[in-house]
Each structure stands twice: as C-alpha cells, then as structure tokens.
C-alpha cells in the first residue's frame, strides 16, 4: 500500500455553485488515487479576478488569510480552479518580493491571530495528479477503457500564465499526457491554451461568445469528440453558452464538455452519477455509450 499524499484542499467559490460536479468528481478520483484531500477549515473566497483590480491590498489580504490557515495545517494547498491558483500564487510571490506588502499583511493577519511565513505551496490538482501520482499509479487503476475517445484538452489561460511555473506558458502538455494515460486520444489543436473569455462572458457577452466559438470550432476542426477542462469558469463558458454561441453565430455545436476528473473517474470505472455527469448541459450520454467499454 503506497503512502498517501496529504494536502489541504481549497475548493474555491465556483465549485460550490454551478460546478458542484467538479468538486464531486475530484473527491471521488482523489480517494481512488490515494491523494488525501482535507478541506481547509474556514477557508474564505480568494478574491480572484475582479477584486484584485479594484482593491489590490484587500484582495491580497483575503488571499493571505487562506495561506495562513493552510500553513497552520503544515500542508500544501491544492486547488481545482486556476483563477484561485493564480490569485493565491500571486499573493505568495508578492509577499516574498515586496517587504512593505509583507509588513501590512503580517500586521493585518495578527489582528486575526494568524501569521504567515511564506512556506505554503499552492498547486493545481492536475499538476498533483500528473507529477505526484504519476503514470503507473494511474494506469494501474483503469478498469474501463475509453477506447481512444478523441478528447481536446483545454487548459485556458490561468493554469500556465502569468508565472509559467506549472507547464509551458504557450503550449502546455500536461493534460495531453494525462489523457493518453487514461486511454483517451488527446487532440492537438493550436488554441488549447487560449482564452475562453472568462468573466467577459457576463460583462461583454459578444466578446466572450466569439472567443468561445473560436475554441469550439478549432477543437472540432481538429477532430475532437469532446473537450476536457480544468477550470470551472472555462467549463461553464464552453458548456453552458454553447446554445448562445449557436444562436449568435448560426453554428451547430453540440460538444460534450467534461472535467478532467470526470474522465479519470470514468476510466476508473465509477458511475456517471457519482461523477456528476448526469446533470450536464451538453449531453454526453450518447458519446460515452459509444466509447466506454462499460457505461455505468
């Protein structure tokens, strides 16, 4: 029995609402892989995206509180949302590089009886699965072949940018590798790490729709049967807005969008329900039935 890898799990706000399936499938898969995720007690919103542009100092404080809580547990922090990853990592870097910010944060945290010494590493679940768990452990647990299901890995912007610490900033390959390990066929397409529009889908819908349309079109052109995501916001844009895209541009996209954790779970033989695949907006039933050896 191999040793478990222990982490503090930071779910983030987006998986509490519309994207519960991500959290669900992540927990199921991590248990199967022996990755011990203990939800960080009393975590708060990381202040991702908008807050940082409006009230930078307070956004850092929000973020730092989570880091301080994680440091108390003496475990690294694992996130499933790249926006959380970027925000928490940004705060981590800035505290280390900017002595004035560090001082302010230290004083503020003290008021809440907390302190942060900068020792927590923030990691995305994808990177933990690929680097810590590894090929052999994953392959050994496959019970249900995906039979070369053509999956387009979609990384989005914030996993690899701006820091470039997780994978190559322009052409990452981590998810491609993982898809290969679980028996799917990763599709190579040039827009795999380009923006889906993110929050713009809500504030400037036409921009968001165009970016999403480009992604869907490019993936399809290169032969994808479905798209794997690693970010709840990207997932929502690609999945929930497919109808709007079709209406706006006169296209006819019906591409299933699945979280990478859901795909791993399927390959490991878990039921669709346990992975939250029953509730998706772009039905994947037909596709999965076509491909999976066993569909539960």
């Amino acid at each position, binding site marked *: 029995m191999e040793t478990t890898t222990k982490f503090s799990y930071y779910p983030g706000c987006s998986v509490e609402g519309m994207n519960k399936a991500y959290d669900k499938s992540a927990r199921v898969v991590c248990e199967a892989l022996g990755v011990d995720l203990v939800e960080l007690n009393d975590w708060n919103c990381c202040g991702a995206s908008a807050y940082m542009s409006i009230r930078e100092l307070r956004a850092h404080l929000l973020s730092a509180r989570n880091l301080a809580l994680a440091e108390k547990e003496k475990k690294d922090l694992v996130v499933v949302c790249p926006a959380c990853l970027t925000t928490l990592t940004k705060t981590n870097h800035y505290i280390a590089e900017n002595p004035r910010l560090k001082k302010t944060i230290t004083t503020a945290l003290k008021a809440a009886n907390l302190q942060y010494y900068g020792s927590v590493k923030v990691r995305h679940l994808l990177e933990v699965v690929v680097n810590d768990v590894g090929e052999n452990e994953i392959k050994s647990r496959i019970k249900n072949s995906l039979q070369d299901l053509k999956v387009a890995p979609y990384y989005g912007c914030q996993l690899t940018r701006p820091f470039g610490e997780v994978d190559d900033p322009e*052409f990452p390959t981590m998810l491609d590798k993982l898809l290969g390990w679980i028996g799917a066929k990763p599709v190579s397409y*040039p827009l795999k790490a380009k923006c889906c529009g993110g929050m713009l889908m809500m504030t400037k819908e036409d921009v968001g729709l165009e970016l999403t349309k480009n992604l869907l079109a490019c993936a399809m052109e290169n032969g994808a049967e479905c798209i794997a995501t690693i970010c709840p916001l990207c997932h929502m844009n690609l999945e929930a807005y497919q109808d709007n895209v079709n209406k706006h541009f006169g296209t006819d996209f019906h591409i299933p969008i699945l979280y990478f954790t859901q795909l791993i779970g399927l390959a490991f033989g878990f039921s669709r329900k346990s992975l939250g695949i029953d509730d998706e907006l772009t039905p994947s039933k037909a596709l999965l039935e076509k491909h999976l050896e066993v569909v539960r």
Partner: protein
Amino acid sequence: MPEKIGVYVCHCGTNIARTVDCKSVAEYASHLPNVAVARDYQYMCSDPGQEMIKKDIHELGLNRVVVASCSPLMHESTFRRAVSSAGVNPFLFQMANIREQCSWITENRELATNRAKAIIAGAVTRVSFNEPLEIKKVPVNPDVLIVGGGITGIEAGLQIADSGRKVWLVEKEPSIGGYMARFDKTFPTLDCAACILTPKMVSVGQHENIELLTYSDVIDFSGYVGNFTAKIRKRPRYVDEEKCNGCGQCEQKCPLSVPSEFDCNLGKRKAIYRPFPQAVPGTPVIDREHCLYFTKGACRVCEKFCPRGAIDFEQKERIVEVPVGTAIIATGFDVFDASRVKEYGYGRLPNVITSLEFERLTHASGPTAGKILLRNGKPPETVAIIHCVGSRDHNYNEYCSRVCCMYSLKTAHLVHEKTDAKVYEFYIDMRAFGKGYEEFYKRLLEEDVTFVRGRVAEVSEVAQNPSEKGKLVVVAEDTLLGIVRRIPVDMVILSLGLEPRKDALEVAHTFSISRSRDGFFLEKHPKLAPVSTAADGIFVAGTCQGPKDIPDSVAQGGAAAANVLSLIDRKEVELEPSIAIIDENVCSGCKICLGLCPYHAITFDEEKSVAVLTAALCKGCGVCVAACPSGAIEQQNFTNSQLLAEVEAVSA
C-alpha cells in the same frame, strides 16, 4: 627611521565633498600616529594636486603617503608615479577608497564621514608597515595570438601582421570569415558582403606574417603579460593542406550529401566539403560523423579522384604550443534560438523563418540560388518582418542587439528587390544610429514598406475569416493607431537578436577573463577601455564583447591591434610585485603550501627540507601565505603585518 606620513583627502569636486566632510576628515587624520601632515584639496589627481604631494615630500621629508580619494583601480598608478618621481618608493604609498565605496553609496553625511575616517585610519596604519619594493620588468614576446577569424579577427590580424609582427590566427571553423561570410548584402550601402570580405580573407591566407590555424581551438592558455603560452589543438581535416590545391574534385565526386550548417540546414553539402566557395583556406574538410568511410568503412571515392593524393584518412589531431606576448579574443556571437519564443511558431509553422535563414535564401550561392521562396517553392505575396526577437525582453535577453533594426530594413529592401511581395515591419523603436542609417530608413519608408509600431503577440495559423485562410496571421497592437491588428501574410521573418556564444564560458575560463551580466566578455572600462580586459595583455574585440555592427567590429579590431602594438613596442612590461616570498629559516618543511599553488610555483628542496618559490611563476594570489602554519611565507605588499594593522584600525 620613524615614519612620516602625508595624508591627502580629495574632494573630487563634489563627488566626495558632497557627502563626506573632507575638512574634518583631514583634521581627524592629522592626529593619527606618525602623520606629519594632513591636507584636503579639490582634485588630488590634477597637476597641482600631485605637485602638492611632491612638495611636501621634499620640504617635510615625508616617507609614506596616503591619498584618500577614488578607487585604487582608478588612480593608484597615477599617485604611485607622482610619489616615485619625488624620490619615494611607489609602494610606500597607500590609497583609501572614500568615493566608490563610501561617498557614492549613501546620502547620509554623518555615516559617510565616519566611514571615511575609518577607511583612512586603516590605510594610515597599514602604510607604516609597507616596505619598498622593486618593480620587476619582463620582456614582451612580439608574437600575437588572435582567437577568432571573423571580420574582427581578420582586421586585427592584418593590422598587426602589416606592422611586421607575427600573428597566430586560430579559427574554430574550417574557414575564416565568420558570420559575415553568410550575409548577402550589408547595410546601409548594400555592399555585397562577400565582395568586401573575401579580399581581406585572401590577404590573411597569403600574408607571410600570419600563421593561420583553422579547424583549431585554443585548449590552454597560461603565463603572464608578455610571456604567454597557448596550446592549440589542430583538429584533423583528413586532407593534407600542403598537397591540396583546392581543385574541388573530391567535393564533386563525393556521393553523400548532408544538411549544410552554413546554409542553416536549408541546403546541402557533401561529406567532404568547403563551407562556402571562397573559403580560406581552400582545403576541404572531411566530416567524420557522416563520411561513409569513417562510419561504414566504405567509399574512399575522394581519395581515388584526388589528383594530388592529398586525402589522408590517417591524419591525427596535432597539439601546437605557441609562445606569444599578447592575445586578442575575437570569437564573435551566436544568434538567439527563435524556437524559444513559442508564440511565433518557429519550428512549428513552416513559413516562419529567421533573419539568418533569409540571408541564405537571398544569397546567390545559397540553397535557392538567391530566390526568396516559401516551403512550397512559390514566392511570397506578403511578408512580415518582426523586430526584437529575443532582445529587449526580460523573458530572454534584456539588452538591445543593436543591428536588428538596420538589418530588418535591409531585409525589407531585398524582399522588394527580388519579389513583388508587400512587406510589413513590426517594430518597437527604429534604431538607426550610424552613418547613413537614418537615410537608409527614409529610403525604406519611401519604398512603401508598412511599418507597424507594436510588439507582435503571436503568429497564428487559426483563421478567423476567409481572408486569413491558409495564411500566417500576425497579431500585433498598432500602438500609433491604438488598435489590435491581424495581418495575414505568407512568410514571417524573425529578426533574431545576438547572444554570446555557447562556449563563451569555456573561453572565459581558458583566458581568465570575466563576463558581464549578459554573458559577453567584460571590458576593463565601458567608455575608456572597451577592448582591454582586467587581465593585462589580453584584449577582446568585436561582437564577443557585445552586439555591434560591422563598422564597429572593424574599429574594435583595429583598437585591439593598436593596444597590442603599443605593448609590444614598449619592449618591456612591469609586473605587479605582490608575489610571495618564503623565509627558509622559518619554514618547517610541512609541505602544506606545495599542493595549494595553482601555478606549481612552489617546489621542495629535499636537502634543506624547505619549500622554494619560483618567483617568475608566482601570480600573487596569496593562498600559500594564508595556509602556512609557521608564517614562513609572506606576500609582498600584502604582508600579515600590513593586513593585521589595517584590520585592527578599521575595526576599532
């Protein structure tokens, strides 16, 4: 005889006086032990300043002098000379650096003044323990080593050889000529590079004073100024240079073609080859890694057809040891690796090429006989040229590579000359600093090139509308119009920045020279000594010192030659006498020092059972001095008494 020390505190205008209270420092110094006089003055290094010191020596009988001013690296020799001319041994002089390491580093007057006082106290205490030393003079070997046979090395070599001195010119490649031999035309005159280069190359090859060693490298370099020894490895060409007459039959008959490095792998060469037709020397080289004889034991066709029997498969590498007095490093540059900038698609998208590859395409003897063609063999209808690839970028190299703006303009012009293509140039700034450069830029503006001021974000193959289908889309912000533009083109040319060579670190170690932050070789002073290095007798010139164009490279080659000739004409050079001395009466024969000396300057006298130092080999590092448990070894001018006194005084 008691010491009589004169202390001089320099204001250096306001450089020192602004932060250090020179008057109070001089006042403080006047009360230090053995100080006969302490003065402060505006500019100690000036004539009146130096006269002041000399006057005091004569009138007050000073036998030690301390000047508190700039760094000893600046004016130590100036003041040593002044003191010496007044009859005091130059080593009874000590300098206190209260500028570079005191007044310039802080705004706090009180702290700076206190620091200056401590530093001077150190120097004053130390100088009491200074001993008079004789400066050793050594003869200078008039032979010169030049490493690198590009345009810079060629220029330096010809200048020195024309003066009657012997030059050993070592070049790594099979032929001299460097990067310039690969260019088609040069800016701004549009001179054909080969036409202006090859006559110089031929002169080098034929010069009676130049010993040309190509396909060779310097593997060791030892000694000291005026007396160096270079170990050069001549790699085997497998062709006898004496017998070969350059007829080229072997090249014609060779059955094996491989990608040509000279052509950036766009064209082919044979396994026995000359890198380009005007190669000097004209002797070909057999590429051992591909040649069918070396890899499979077959063929030998070249040998069969050679009319002079010059092919020699048994040729071995030769090591030549050459004594020289000076060396000029002119090893050149490498281009930035464009595949690192993934968003431009080099290596992934077939019609994204580099500026160097473009030079080979447009070159008459290049892989396409001078035609500009896409991978499918057709000429392009639209071309984009992207400036600053790998330069001015904190992700790659922060510096500006200086030549790219100009060669990008030249590229645009050549595209116009050879095709009907429309050219777009994407730039950040237009750097046209040289003679005729701004006029050349104007010419290109009139040639109807579209200049877009903005960094290119990416070169995309994903079409967003029908006009982009099948094209490379250059996405850039046009900062003058304030919009993001997508411009579909057929061919993208990346203007690569210049970088230090991959083996620059090795070369730096071989010659014991330093490198600047960006990896190019470090000059002694960026303004006043651009071709000298901290190591006496070793000079750098050309692009190995920093990115520059051909006129500047040639100028530096000439400057290095002048420096070398000046050294040689002096006939003798002075050595820094801070070498070690072993007192055999104190030496206990423990032999600890023997293994420590990097120059093997210490040997053991079995009879007397003591260590013996060969002064000529000692370079004055002081490692043995620190190691000796008996205190038998002292370092002249850095004796234990001197250092202990200085340490005690500054710490108090």
